[in-house]
């Protein structure tokens, strides 16, 4: 039996910021900025939350034929809006999904999307409900209520890379976008305090420790994969590689580390291999920033849309979530994958985002006070940046309208 992703879509938000402009504004001295491979980052507007992002990603996947067959909705996020009620309950309602559905939310930092995908694939492979589909949505936004300069300073290490985005995938026994290699996976996990979200609107972390853990996991998760998969070779088994992408420079460092450690590859050959097999998967990430739980699936979407794909190709994927848990797994994409994904117009949607100026961005950081975690009642001010709101009109996009007694109300614009 085959299983995997039948359909996929990305939602990259309604507004973005130029990252170099942000670094200059913050006075961050980055003499070799180009090596970090960061260009833009999506910024969630105050009336966009993880649920509106998720629904906007998933809506184009839910056709009338598909809707009645969805039996599970897994939301994968580290930006949840409630400790008890899962985001899947809102998503089921907003997408008019069947009532006979399993609804839940899972968390393990940026690893969540892979955890959700594997749960859904194993549900399909189990054969307990033939023909059933699962909707998996990885959705994360970085939104921090910054009250003063000290808080901005604490966030400084990750502010340039922190983005927002959602990837929705329909998992079934008709994997025409990405067919998983069943049983081909490797894990590496251990307790480490590298990056965390210890409060509702705060993030803390140690950039060096996080990078160390990421690199250790990349090597060990692949070795666990190779232990399970006879003949697996990091250089030759995969036409393309998709890595969790905090920022492109980190992925480049991890690829370099593995190629040197496993094969003692020369720097020139490492660079050529990076551009060929890893580069296509970074394109979308360089436009939306770190999308946390959605990041590995975003790299897959980027590879399908941007890589040279004349014939079926095996893709190796590496997912890492701070704290930490990681996985290396694989599957196959085909020219048909691209045909299907291109109907989603992902690149075009990113192009249509509103470009924020620095004063507008700073206004949003302050405006976020209205949407702190646990807000009981709020009427969202859609006019906070009038031009951004105008750009949203007639885009068939879901936005948050108000919160009444903790209950979030949305509307389509």
């Amino acid at each position, binding site marked *: 039996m085959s299983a995997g992703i039948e359909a996929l879509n990305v939602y990259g938000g309604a507004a973005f910021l130029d990252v170099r402009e942000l670094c200059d504004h913050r006075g961050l001295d980055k003499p070799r900025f180009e090596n970090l491979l960061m260009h833009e980052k999506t910024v969630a507007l105050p009336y966009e939350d993880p649920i509106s992002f998720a629904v906007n990603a998933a809506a184009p996947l839910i056709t009338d034929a598909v809707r009645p067959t969805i039996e599970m909705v897994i939301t994968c996020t580290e930006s949840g809006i409630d400790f008890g009620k899962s985001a899947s309950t809102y998503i089921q309602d907003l997408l008019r999904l069947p009532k006979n559905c399993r609804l839940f939310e899972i968390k393990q930092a940026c690893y969540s999307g892979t955890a959700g995908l594997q749960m859904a694939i194993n549900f399909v492979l189990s054969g307990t409900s033939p023909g059933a589909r699962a909707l998996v949505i990885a959705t994360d936004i970085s939104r921090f209520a910054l009250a003063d300069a000290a808080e901005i300073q604490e966030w400084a290490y990750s502010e340039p890379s922190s983005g927002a985005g959602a990837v929705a995938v329909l998992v079934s026994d008709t994997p025409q976008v990405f067919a998983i290699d069943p049983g081909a996976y490797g894990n590496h996990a251990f307790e480490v305090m590298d990056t965390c979200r210890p409060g509702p609107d705060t993030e803390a972390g140690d950039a060096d420790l996080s990078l160390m853990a990421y690199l250790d996991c990349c090597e060990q998760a692949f070795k666990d994969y190779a232990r399970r998969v006879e003949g697996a070779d990091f250089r030759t088994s995969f036409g393309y590689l998709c890595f969790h992408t905090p920022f492109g420079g*980190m992925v480049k*460092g991890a690829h370099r580390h593995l190629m040197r450690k496993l094969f003692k590859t020369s720097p020139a050959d490492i660079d050529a291999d990076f551009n060929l097999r890893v580069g296509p998967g970074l394109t979308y990430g360089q436009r939306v920033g770190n999308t946390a739980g959605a990041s590995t699936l975003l790299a897959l979407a980027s590879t399908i849309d941007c890589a040279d794909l004349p014939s079926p190709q095996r893709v190796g994927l590496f997912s890492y979530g701070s704290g930490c848990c990681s996985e290396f797994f694989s599957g196959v994409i085909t020219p048909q994958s691209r045909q299907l994904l291109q109907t989603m117009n992902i690149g075009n949607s990113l192009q249509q985002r509103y470009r924020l100026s620095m004063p507008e961005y700073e206004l949003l950081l302050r405006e976020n006070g209205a949407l702190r975690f646990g807000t009981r009642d709020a009427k969202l001010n859609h006019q906070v940046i009038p031009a951004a709101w105008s750009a949203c009109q007639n885009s068939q996009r879901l936005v948050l309208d108000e919160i009444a007694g903790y209950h979030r109300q949305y509307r389509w614009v």
Partner: protein
Amino acid sequence: MDSDSILEIITTTIHSIVPDLSDTPITASDTMSQLGLDSVERQEVVILTLEAIGLEIPLVQLRGPRTIGDLAMLLHAKRKG
């Protein structure tokens, strides 16, 4: 190999990764952040130094040191086991 030799390897590695610093003297009390190395460059220095001294340990065991001298001493201690 004593920690001074490891310090020398670290210094040479920094100069090879960031040629812009070739005219900048580096001392044990410097931190790589102060020298302008970003997080990816800092890890690259650590990885290449580990290779050069033939030490294979999880990178997370090397968290903590602030200065290059501290890093050299930690690597020396790890190498001795």
